[in-house]
């Protein structure tokens, strides 16, 4: 069921910069472009801004090709800082 928020997942350095791994980010029913949400995140968490500049973004499990893509209520939006597995 669509809630009136986007679920934002924050991994690795993004989690460290915000102090949380997951946020419910309120959006209007029509949604907002990903770049708008990123601007709002950077404003709320200034320490997150440098990480966002080197991250990739994943909407509902798929990499986002364009930051103009609209995120709608119920979407999952993940911030992927550079990977470090192994």
């Amino acid at each position, binding site marked *: 069921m669509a809630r009136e928020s986007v679920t934002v*997942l*924050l*991994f*690795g*350095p993004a*989690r*460290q910069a*915000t*102090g*949380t*791994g*997951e946020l419910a980010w309120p959006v209007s029913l029509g949604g907002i472009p990903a770049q708008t949400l990123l601007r709002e995140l950077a404003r709320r968490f200034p320490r997150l801004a440098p990480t966002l500049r080197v991250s990739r973004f*994943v909407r509902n*499990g*798929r*990499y986002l090709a364009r930051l103009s893509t609209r995120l709608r209520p119920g979407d999952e939006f*993940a911030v*992927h*800082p550079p*990977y*470090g*597995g*192994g």
Partner: protein
Amino acid sequence: MSVRLTGHPLSVSAAMRALSGRGLGGVVLFAGRVRPDLGPSGPVVALVYEIHEMPALRRLRELEGAARRRFGAERVVLWHRFGRLKVGEVSAIVGAACAHRAQAFAATRYLIEELKASVPIWKTERARPSRRPRPRPSRRVGRSAG
């Protein structure tokens, strides 16, 4: 073929069994272990691994297929652990079984390099066992065990 993301310890002997098959004479395994590096807040005693499960599994399955096509790997292991791992624990096992060893070396090297570069896994250093409550970890896979 074997892709696995788990919160439990990884076993190289289980990986060897997964890499068994008739005609597979060369098996190469890579195991990554937590190193006691010196972090900004002192010597690392543990790492916390987080994984974004859905895209990670998709990418690992792509890598399996690539190892088969490019190197003739008939068995592949791509296992990664998540949660809190102490120094010395095995974080990942990557391996390939092929008819000949040159292919198995090339496939395993390819798989670990690609895993590091292209699979959504992150590690965070822990300088010493923390007593204070930590930030709530990301959901899906990857919650800290400690």
